[in-house]
């Protein structure tokens, strides 16, 4: 087009002129324009040009508004379809990378979406769920708030008095125990519930008699999952499992509700009425979860007021702790933030994280897809040029690209669904949350729509550009300005993709390092060969002492100790205000009670100890160094210093080398600011009896069966479950573990998709530079130099990506880890190793494709040029 012709009028003509005559008319106008410019001057020529264009507005010139006959339109579509298939076949490498990358992203997003949907759909199938609630508790301890699904033991027994208007009240206790089944030990997730449990959470009874189970504590109901898991067969009713008899089978609980149990029995122990003033932390923490059903016309605010009036009464008996009750509707429990040891539940925060992951995945895959589509399009400039010369219209070229990208998009979508269903059967065990693999119509439609949108966007970029470009420009050796702009868009997209991937890589590596540091932390004692037993409190206290004494007589038992909580695992340590006797210094500290066998059982490393103080006093205290520091007690003066807790005064008899109850909730709580400030105290009372008994057995001594024999002799009706402290310590941080697991899958997927994108671009670069490589080789360039030349662009992109991603990832990591104790040190060495690894992975992938091209025989590569 002549640069001097009036642009607007030229565009106007191209808009209204019939396509059949446009070329000749525009050509005539331009030829006349040049003649007029030479004879009459530029200004006059432009005026004549404008007039001629306006006079072209006549019926014979204007584009007709009649639609193309249906037959012609379909044949055009078919032609485009055939061309698309041909293009796909010709560029198999691109096609595969595009489709696989997109498909992988779709399948991961499907898993994440279904995990979220599963969580949302939990508890939705119970009857009258609008009127059913769980009573959860907000526990406030000196400014620290914990939202728990449990409520104090006293609440259940008081509920009929507090809420006479409740239609139904049910309480349950989770009960994980060990069972010897067919010669091996299995761990069973059980529930002990009150009689009205199934009235409120109305799980379907598939077989047997639930009345028998309700009326007899030795009869149990198992879930169909349990029956399948242990192949109990069809004739399960009446089967003996330990001391229990199976009398009913319930439907599966896994995808139905927030409670994920395998067997259920009913126990009148839950009807035990504990005194209101009972405030023992241990008892609370192993207490009940309570549910109520109200009538339609019930006033919820009134119920909340009554519950909190009871809470106030309870709080008067507590020191430095207060409760507040909250009603959570049954259908919201799947995403409740109230901590629950049952099931693997996704909280509301977890949903947000999943959604962010999905967004990142979709973004990465879309950028990849667009980039590869654009790169492929640039490869076909000459093809487009020829088509335009022989008469292809802009819209036809545009439609071609859209159709191709949509076709690839559908292939990717199909592959994504295929991968999803292929892995869904087995991946349930790997996903740490409740997961229903069924894909609903709505989900499928959403994913199809997303795929179409991504495909359209990917096709629009090259389609718009190439359809507008002039055929002359396409054959020019030097790219005009517009092509340069298009290349820049692609490079920007690549940098964005690399930046997101670098961010995920750096953040993930820091997160994994933090998690690893918690896993490897030295807890200052050896946990191997230590087991623990829990008992129902308070009925069996004296019997427990008898049991301990009998057990200690066994040669296989080295030592045993009663304790108030399970050091170092328990995540709900008691807190008390501590003061020195003679000063006003006070400290809120974590406190544990144990008998004097603690040291033989745990063998903690001691900084200082004076056993005579322990022997000569009714009770004594053992503390850590942070405790001393915060109370301004010098280490050398620690032993014998009196400490006041409430009305009791106890001397310090020893100092631990490091904290013994590091509270394996990595989120710090008051009194445990961070690892270095964590203060704690162990109160030793020689003849203390608690309902937690910790036992150290001799190595390889097969002590457990012997201990069981002793136990069953004394408690024939009870169930004994020994759990290994070492095993339990390995499964600490379950929330972090879940996060790490999910993060790892998404992380790997994102890296793989980015690598696929890099591979595609590397292939494209190598192929477009075949001539250049061949000539450089002929002139003597080495393979190394050629390869470096080809990866120069990638290196610069990686550098830019890291410069942006590293500070953002660091800031977000510090923010996320803000309330976690012992944050890792962000040293230059740590960053260097992460960055080097990231760069190495990307470069290795790219080099693996480029080096063979660089090694190619120049005779072969230049043969067809």
């Amino acid at each position, binding site marked *: 087009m002549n640069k001097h012709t009036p642009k607007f009028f030229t565009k106007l003509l191209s808009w209204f002129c019939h396509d059949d005559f446009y070329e000749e008319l525009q050509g005539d106008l331009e030829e006349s324009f040049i003649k007029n410019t030479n004879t009459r001057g530029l200004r006059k020529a432009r005026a004549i040009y404008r007039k001629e264009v306006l006079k*072209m*507005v*006549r019926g014979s010139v204007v584009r007709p508004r009649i639609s193309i006959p249906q037959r012609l339109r379909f044949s055009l579509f078919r032609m485009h379809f055939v061309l698309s298939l041909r293009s796909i076949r010709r560029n198999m490498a691109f096609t595969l990378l595009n489709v696989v990358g997109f498909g992988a992203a779709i399948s991961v997003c499907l898993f994440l979406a279904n995990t979220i949907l599963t969580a949302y759909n939990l508890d939705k199938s119970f009857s009258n769920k609008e009127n059913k609630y769980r009573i959860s508790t907000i526990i406030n301890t000196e400014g620290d708030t914990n939202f728990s699904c449990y409520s104090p033991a006293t609440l259940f027994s008081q509920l009929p008095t507090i809420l006479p208007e409740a239609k139904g009240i049910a309480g349950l206790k989770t009960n994980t125990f060990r069972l010897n089944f067919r010669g091996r030990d299995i761990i069973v997730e059980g529930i002990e519930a009150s009689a009205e449990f199934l009235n409120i959470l109305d799980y379907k009874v598939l077989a047997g008699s639930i009345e028998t189970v309700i009326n007899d504590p030795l009869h149990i109901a198992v879930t169909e999952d349990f029956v399948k898991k242990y192949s109990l067969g069809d004739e399960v009713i009446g089967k003996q499992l330990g001391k229990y008899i199976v009398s009913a089978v319930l439907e599966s609980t896994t995808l139905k509700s927030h409670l994920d149990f395998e067997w259920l029995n009913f126990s009148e122990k839950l009807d035990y009425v504990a005194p209101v003033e009972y405030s023992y932390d241990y008892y609370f923490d192993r207490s009940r979860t309570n549910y109520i059903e109200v009538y339609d016309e019930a006033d919820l605010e009134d119920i909340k007021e009554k519950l909190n009036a009871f809470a106030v009464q309870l709080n008067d008996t507590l020191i430095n702790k207060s409760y507040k009750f909250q009603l959570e509707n049954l259908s919201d429990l799947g995403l409740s933030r109230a901590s629950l040891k049952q099931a693997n539940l996704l909280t509301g925060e977890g949903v947000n994280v999943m959604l962010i992951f999905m967004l990142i995945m979709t973004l990465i895959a879309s950028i990849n897809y667009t980039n590869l589509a654009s790169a492929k399009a640039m490869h076909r400039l000459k093809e487009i040029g020829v088509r335009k010369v022989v008469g292809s219209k802009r819209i036809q070229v545009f439609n071609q690209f859209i159709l191709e990208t949509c076709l690839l998009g559908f292939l990717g979508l199909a592959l994504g669904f295929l991968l999803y269903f292929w892995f869904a059967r087995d991946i349930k065990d790997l996903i740490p949350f409740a997961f229903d693999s069924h894909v609903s119509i709505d989900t499928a439609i959403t994913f199809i729509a997303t795929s179409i949108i991504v495909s359209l966007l990917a096709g629009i970029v090259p389609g718009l550009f190439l359809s507008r470009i002039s055929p002359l420009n396409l054959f020019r050796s030097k790219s005009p300005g517009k092509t340069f702009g298009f290349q820049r868009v692609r490079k920007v997209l690549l940098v964005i993709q690399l930046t997101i991937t670098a961010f995920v890589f750096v953040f993930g590596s820091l997160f994994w390092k933090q998690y690893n540091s918690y896993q490897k932390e030295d807890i200052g004692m050896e946990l191997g060969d230590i087991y623990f037993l829990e008992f129902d409190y308070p009925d069996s206290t004296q019997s427990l002492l008898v049991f301990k004494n009998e057990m200690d007589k066994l040669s296989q038992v080295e030592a045993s100790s009663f304790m108030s909580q399970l050091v170092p695992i328990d995540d709900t340590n008691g807190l008390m205000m501590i003061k020195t006797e003679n000063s006003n210094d006070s400290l809120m500290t974590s406190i544990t009670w144990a008998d004097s066998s603690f040291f033989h059982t745990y063998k903690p490393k001691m900084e200082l100890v004076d056993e005579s103080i322990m022997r000569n006093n009714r009770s004594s205290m053992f503390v850590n160094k942070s405790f001393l520091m915060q109370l301004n007690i010098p280490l050398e003066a620690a032993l014998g210093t009196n400490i006041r807790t409430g009305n009791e005064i106890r001397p310090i008899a020893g100092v631990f080398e490091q904290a013994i109850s590091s509270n394996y909730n990595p989120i710090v709580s008051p009194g445990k600011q961070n690892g270095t400030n964590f203060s704690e105290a162990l109160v030793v009372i020689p003849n203390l009896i608690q309902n937690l008994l910790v036992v150290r057995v001799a190595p390889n001594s097969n002590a457990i069966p012997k201990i069981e024999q002793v136990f069953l002799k004394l408690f024939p009706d009870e169930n004994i479950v020994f759990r290994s402290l070492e095993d339990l310590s390995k499964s600490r941080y379950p929330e972090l573990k879940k996060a790490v697991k999910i993060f790892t899958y998404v992380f790997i997927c994102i890296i793989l998709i980015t690598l696929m994108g890099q591979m595609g671009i590397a292939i494209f670069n190598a192929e477009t530079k075949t001539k250049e490589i061949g000539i450089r080789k002929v002139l003597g360039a080495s393979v190394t130099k050629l390869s470096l030349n080809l990866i120069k662009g990638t290196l610069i992109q990686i550098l830019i990506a890291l410069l942006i991603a590293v500070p953002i990832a660091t800031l977000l990591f510090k923010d996320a880890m803000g309330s976690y104790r012992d944050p890792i040190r962000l040293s230059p060495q740590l960053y260097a190793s992460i960055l080097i690894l990231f760069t190495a992975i990307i470069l290795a992938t790219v080099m693996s494709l480029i080096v063979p091209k660089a090694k190619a025989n120049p005779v072969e590569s230049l043969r067809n040029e």
Partner: protein
Amino acid sequence: MKGNNLGEFEELALLTILVLGDDAYGVTIKQAIIKQGERQISRGALHTALSRLEDKGFLTSRQGEASEARGGRPKRYYEVTNKGKEALHEAKATRDRLWNQIPEVRLELQYAW
């Protein structure tokens, strides 16, 4: 005009194309008509006339070469068909017949004094 009759401008266009011979395309036809016919016409009006003549079968067209002056766009050359020539002969015969029937005295120019 409808049918196979030639309009005045159409006749002019056909004659101009015949005069131009192989070089009859949009620009040259227009220039020739302006010069020979001593009248201004627009390219659009010419296009309408040429399209109509092509529809009637009096003209054929073919795509010619492109040039840089035309922005890489091809020319469209026009050629009068036999049917077009017949129509021109007929129109000329009709005109000649009518001209021959007019007495000479009626053709003299008369002025009022």
